[in-house]
């Protein structure tokens, strides 16, 4: 009898725990997007838009770029047009004998981001390389 009560209590606690976890998962949503842009000697400016809704309370943006040749500027703007970060990378040597690579990486974690369209502006100048932009938006 005592054992069956103990077993019953254990099962009850276990199910309650699972239910609580499920509720927490249901209330917390996150959206992640990955984009990769390849440049093949391009000098065409590109704007990548990140749409941040009202419910979003955390935003994480990670930008990774590698340049084999050319000059690349990466800038992050909030919907009000304020610059939230930037970097530039340049590689000058890209011959058959000698090659170099330059990497730039930017991580931005923003609490309660301004809702609207955030922009990652890519300004390349004869760039051979690539940029990957990973964004994750969380709403609790």
């Amino acid at each position, binding site marked *: 009898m005592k054992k069956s009560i103990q077993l019953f209590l254990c099962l009850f606690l276990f199910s309650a725990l699972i239910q609580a976890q499920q509720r927490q998962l249901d209330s917390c949503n996150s959206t992640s997007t990955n984009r990769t842009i390849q440049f093949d000697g391009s000098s065409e400016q590109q704007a990548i838009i990140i749409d941040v809704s009202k419910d979003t309370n955390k935003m994480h943006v990670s930008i990774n770029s590698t340049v084999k040749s050319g000059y690349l500027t990466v800038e992050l703007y909030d919907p009000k047009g304020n610059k939230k970060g930037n970097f530039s990378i340049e590689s000058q040597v890209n011959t058959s004998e000698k090659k170099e690579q330059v990497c730039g990486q*930017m991580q931005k974690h923003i609490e309660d981001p301004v809702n609207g369209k955030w922009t990652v502006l890519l300004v390349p100048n004869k760039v051979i390389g690539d940029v990957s932009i990973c964004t994750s938006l969380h709403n609790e």
Partner: protein
Amino acid sequence: MNKTKIYINRIHIKSYKLLLFILFVNSLNCFSQSKSKNEQSKSINGKLQLDSIWEPVVYLSHIPTFKDMYKMSNEIIIAEAKVDSLGEFHFSTESLPKADHLYRLHISKKTSPAASLIIGGKEENHIFLIANKNSNISISNRTKDSLFYNYIINGYQPNVDFKTIHGIISNDNTGAVKSNLKKEFINKTIYEELRHIADTSSHPIVSLYALTNSKFESTYLENQKFYKNYLEKWKSENSSYFNELRSKFPKEESTNSNLWIIVSAIFFFLLGYIINYVIGSRRKKANKQLKLLSIQERKIYNLLVEGKSNKEISEEFNIGVSTVKSHVSSIYNKLNIKSRKDIVSVNNM
């Protein structure tokens, strides 16, 4: 007896000489040691605890303007130093310029090229420092997990101040604040504090870094006097950092340039007046001369202006060519001209 005395004296002199020689060698040794110690102290050195993901090489880059703080290329790397098994590295500052400049130290991951820049997060791979030829700076980090997340910099006070300002700027100070109004208020307070640091700091790069990040452009019109005084305070600073700032301020119109504007305005006014007067007087003269002509002569004059021949004029007025000729010669006399070409010039007056 005397010989022994002389012998003893000689020994004394020799021992003195030996003592002097030893003293000389010793002092030379001391001098060279202190010199080498001094040379050793002029360096950027440090002790870093590195995780296995990092290549044990520290790179030093020169940052010519604040705009280039987050620029990366192989060209701006000016030196590299190996991190030894104890985590120690050392750059001599002998080759650096005498004046203070901004530099960046960075470490790259083993999987990345030397010219790699990571901004933000615990993997941020760089720090900024101010140094000159005589600087002695030491850097260390606290844990293996974060490279420069919580580093310590000692040896040159401007770096401590620069680090504090950089921390204020880089951190999201309003992250935990929900209200937009509160966020705005906090940001405004931070910008004001940065302007205060800029005003009170005695180091030009530190002061300028604070001002550059205080969004001074938005308050320029409200605080013109402050910025004017600021530029006046650092007018002797001719570094690229200050030239960058000066280019952001609207160029002040000096009293000299104002004077030039006034003088040139008066000159052009007078020039216009004179031209107008000359043209006017010539017109008046021409009108006066035309008034001397009779009605018939004026009619013929108009046809002469149109370029018509004597015959055409005679046909127009049904008069003889000889009459036309006499009218024409009378017109020539009254207008004081000699040919038909002159008629056109009289008309253009």
